[in-house]
C-alpha cells in the first residue's frame, strides 16, 4: 500500500479563484492556534492584527502606503512569473532604484523645480532596470539561472547602499549617522491626505496595476508573455522570441521595483538610509502568487499583505506579540496557499500496486 499523487482530470475553474480566499481563512485559523500556543488570546490578537488597523484614517492611509510598493512590484514580477522568468531579486532592484533616485535628489538638492521628482522617478526606474539587466543578460547569453543571480544581486545591492550611506553620500552635518542629507521639498512626493503619510505614489501604483492589466490581457506583448510561460514550444512555433520575453519581463519587473524604491525614499523616508524596504521585494513574490498573477488579484493581495504588516506592528504594540510572529504568519499564508494550489490540481490516493492475473 502506498500513497499515490495523481493529477485531477478537470479541476473546477471556480476553485482556482476560491483557493486564495480559502488559504487566507485556513491561515487565520492556524494563526489563531499559533497565537494561542504562544500564550496570547487568539481573539484579541486577531482583532488587533486584522480589524483595528482599519478603524482609523491613519491606519487606512498606512495600509495603502504599504500596499503601493507591494502591488507595483507584484505586477512587475507577475509578468515574469507568467513567462517562467523567476526574478526573485526585486528587493535588490528596489534598492538600486532608491539609490539612483536618491542620488538624483541629492545632486539636485538646491534645485526647486517641478521636474526634479519625475527625473528621480526615471532614474529609479533606470536603476532597477540596470540591476535586473544583469540576470537577464546572464540568462539569455549563458543560460544562467535568474533565480540565483537576481537573489544574489539583492545582497550586493544592500551592501552597495550601505557603502554609499557610510561613505560618499553621508550627510556631512548628520553627526556621523550613516544616512544622507534630507531631500529638498521638491524631491518629496506630494501628500494625498493631510496628517498621514499617504502620498501620490499610491495613484501611480494604481495606474501601474491598471496598465499592467491592459498589457497582459489585451496586447500582443502580454499574449506573448503568456504563451512563452504556458507552452515554450508553441511560442517558438509562433515566432515569439523567448530571449526577448526574458529581457522584457526582467526589465519591467526591475523598473517597477526601482520605481517603488524611489517612492520609498521620496515618500515616507525622505533621505537615503541603510535600510529602505522592510522586505517589500520578497513579500511581493507572495503577493504575486496570492493574487494569482493577475493585476487585480495582486492589488487585493497587496492590501492583505500590507494589513498583515500593519496588523503585526499593531499587535506588537497592543498585546506585545513578538515581531517574528508576523513573519511566521506571512510564511504560513504562502505555505497554505501553495498547498491548497497543489491539492486543487492533484489528489492523493491510497493505492495498491496492481497485480495482474496470471
Amino acid at each position, binding site marked *: 500500500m502506498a500513497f499515490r499523487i495523481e493529477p485531477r482530470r478537470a479541476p473546477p475553474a471556480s476553485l482556482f479563484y476560491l483557493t486564495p480566499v480559502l488559504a487566507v481563512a485556513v491561515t487565520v485559523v492556524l494563526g489563531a492556534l499559533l497565537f494561542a500556543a504562544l500564550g496570547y488570546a487568539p481573539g484579541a490578537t486577531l482583532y488587533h492584527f486584522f480589524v483595528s488597523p482599519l478603524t482609523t484614517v491613519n491606519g487606512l492611509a498606512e495600509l495603502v502606503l504599504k500596499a503601493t510598493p507591494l502591488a507595483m512590484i507584484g505586477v512587475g514580477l507577475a509578468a515574469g512569473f507568467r513567462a517562467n522568468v523567476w526574478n526573485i531579486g526585486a528587493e535588490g532592484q528596489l534598492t538600486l532604484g532608491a539609490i539612483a533616485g536618491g542620488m538624483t535628489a541629492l545632486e539636485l538638492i538646491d534645485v526647486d523645480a517641478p521636474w526634479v521628482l519625475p527625473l528621480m522617478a526615471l532614474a529609479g526606474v533606470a536603476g532597477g532596470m540596470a540591476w535586473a539587466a544583469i540576470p537577464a543578460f546572464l540568462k539569455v547569453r549563458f543560460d544562467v539561472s535568474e533565480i540565483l543571480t537576481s537573489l544574489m544581486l539583492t545582497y550586493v545591492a544592500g551592501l552597495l547602499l550601505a557603502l554609499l550611506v557610510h561613505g560618499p553620500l553621508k550627510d556631512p552635518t548628520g553627526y556621523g549617522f550613516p544616512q544622507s542629507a534630507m531631500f529638498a521639498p521638491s524631491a518629496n512626493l506630494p501628500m494625498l491626505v493631510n496628517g498621514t503619510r499617504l502620498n501620490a505614489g499610491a495613484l501611480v501604483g494604481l495606474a501601474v496595476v491598471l496598465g499592467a492589466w491592459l498589457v497582459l490581457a*489585451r*496586447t*500582443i*506583448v502580454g*499574449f506573448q508573455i*503568456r*504563451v512563452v510561460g*504556458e*507552452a515554450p*514550444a*508553441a511560442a*517558438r*512555433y*509562433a*515566432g*515569439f*522570441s523567448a530571449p526577448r520575453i526574458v529581457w522584457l519581463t526582467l526589465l519591467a519587473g526591475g523598473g517597477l521595483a526601482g520605481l517603488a524604491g524611489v517612492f520609498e525614499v521620496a515618500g515616507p523616508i525622505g533621505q537615503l538610509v541603510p535600510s529602505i524596504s522592510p522586505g517589500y521585494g520578497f513579500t511581493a513574490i507572495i503577493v504575486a502568487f496570492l493574487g494569482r498573477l493577475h493585476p487585480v488579484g495582486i492589488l487585493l493581495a497587496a492590501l492583505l499583505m500590507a494589513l498583515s504588516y500593519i496588523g503585526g506592528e499593531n499587535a506588537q504594540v497592543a498585546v506585545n506579540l513578538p515581531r517574528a510572529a508576523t513573519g511566521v504568519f506571512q510564511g504560513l499564508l504562502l505555505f497554505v496557499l501553495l498547498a491548497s494550489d497543489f491539492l486543487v490540481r492533484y489528489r492523493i490516493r491510497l493505492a495498491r500496486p*496492481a*497485480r*495482474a*492475473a*496470471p
Partner: protein
Amino acid sequence: MDLGESAPAPRLSLRGIVKRFPGVVANDAVSLDVRQGEIHGLIGENGAGKSTLVKIIDGVLQPDEGEILWQGRPVTIPDPRAARRLGIGMVFQHFSLFEAMSVVENVALGLDDPPPRNRLAAEIRDVAADYGLPLDPARDVHTLSVGERQRIEIVRALLQKPRLLIMDEPTSVLTPQEVERLFATLRRLAGEGCSILYISHKLQEITALCERATILRGGKVVAACDPRRETAGSMAQMMIGAELRTVARRSGAVVGAPRLVVEGLDLPASDPHGVALKGIGFEVRAGEIVGIAGVAGNGQGELEQALAGERPAARPEAIRIDGRPAGRLGPDERRAAGLCCVPEERNGHGAVPGFTLVENGILSAHHRRGLVGGGLIRLRKARAFAAEIVSAFDVRTPGVDAAASSLSGGNLQKFVVGREILQGPGVLVVSQPTWGVDAGAAAAIHAALIRLAGEGAAILVISQDLDELLMLSDRLAVINGGVLSPPRPTDAMSVEEIGLLMGGVHGVDPAPAEAAHGV
C-alpha cells in the same frame, strides 16, 4: 515448427499474447520463440506493437491474454525486477543515465543488489575488457559520447549474466563504426549461449545479424522468416504490407512555378538523441503536393522545425519561399512571406492547451489575419476567425471560448489544420495531418489540402501514414537518418522501393530482391 524430443525448450516463448489499450489492440495474439543462443530480430514500423511486446517481456506491462514460457515453464513477470531475476536484461533505446554521476555510480543505481563500489568498478572493467567495450568506470557520464553511454547500459545488463538480452533500436544513435563493434559483441554473446531479441526497423541490420526474425504489423505477427534467406526488399514488403496499392490516387495536378525551394539544408542535431539534417534538397511547385515518408525519428521533426523557422538555417539561400531567401527568417517572418506550418505535436506546440480557441487562433494567425492592431489584440476579429475555423472544419466544441485542452485530439487537430489553411498560405508544411482523427475528419482534411493545392499553394506533407502519402502526394521522398531521398513521382515508386528507402537501404536495385524472393 516441430520440436524433436531432444531439442531444448526455447529460452522464451510467447503464446497468443494480447494487450489492449483504450481504442487499440497493441498486440493481437502474438506468438514467438527465442531459442538459446539465437539472435532473433523483431521488425515492424512504428506503432506495430514492438515496444508493447518488449514491455510485457520486461514485466512493465501485463498481457490481457496469453502465456509466457521461460525455458518451457509458464511464468508471470509482475515487474522488471522479476524479469531480471529470470535472467532478462534490457537495453533501452533512450538511456536513463544521470549525467552528473560517474559510470560506476550509474551502474550501481541500475542493479538490485550492487556490490561495493570498488569491486563493482573492477567487475565493470572486466566485463568491458572481456567484450571489447572500452569503458572507464570512474568517468562522469556527461563527458562520454553517445556510443559510450550505450556501453554503460550494455555492461549494466551483462553484469547480471543475462540469458536473454533485449535490445531496443540500439543503433539509432551510433556511428557505423560503433555499430560494427556492437554487432561483434552481440555475436560473441550469442556464441556463449545468451539469447538476444533484437528490435529494429533497419532491415540491413536484421539481415546482417539475425538468424530468425518475427515481423509485426498492426499488432499482429505477419511473418516469421530467416533474414539470411530474405532480402531487405522482401522484408520491407512484409513490414509495410501489400494492400497499400489499393488506395485511390488523386488525379494529376496542374503544377506551376516552384514556391518552396530547399537546397543544401544542413542542421546539426539539437540533442544527443536528435537527428542531424544533411544536405536536404527538394522543391514544391504551385499546385503540387509533395509527400515525405519515413520511420519516426529519422529527422522529420527537425525538418519541420527547419522549414517553419523554429531553428534557422545557416544560409539564407538554403530555403526560398517564392524565390525569396528565407533560411535566416524566424517563424513569423516566414509566415508573412507565405509559409504556414502544422507541427506534428498539437498539444503545447501547435496549440497552447490552457488557452481558448480564440487565443489559439491568434497564436499563429495574428499577422496574416490582421488580428492585432497597434499592439492591441482585436478581440472581435479573433473571435470571428476562431468561429470560422470551427464551422469550416466541423470542430466539435462547446464554443470558441473552450480551452484547447478540452477538445479531443482529433478535434484539436482539425482546428490547428484549419487555422493554417484558412490563412491562405502560399506554402503549407503539414506534419501528420490526420494523426488521431477519425476517417470522416481525415477525409475532410485531405479534401481541404487538395483544394488548397488546387488554388495554387505548394503543400509539403510529412507523414508516417503511407496510405495517406500515396493518396495525396504528386511526388514522394523518403527521409532516413536525416537524409532525404530525391522526390520522385508517386506513380513511379513501388511499395518495395519506399520500404527499402525507409529501412535505410539507398541505391539498391530492387530487381535482385524479386529474384531472391522466388528462391
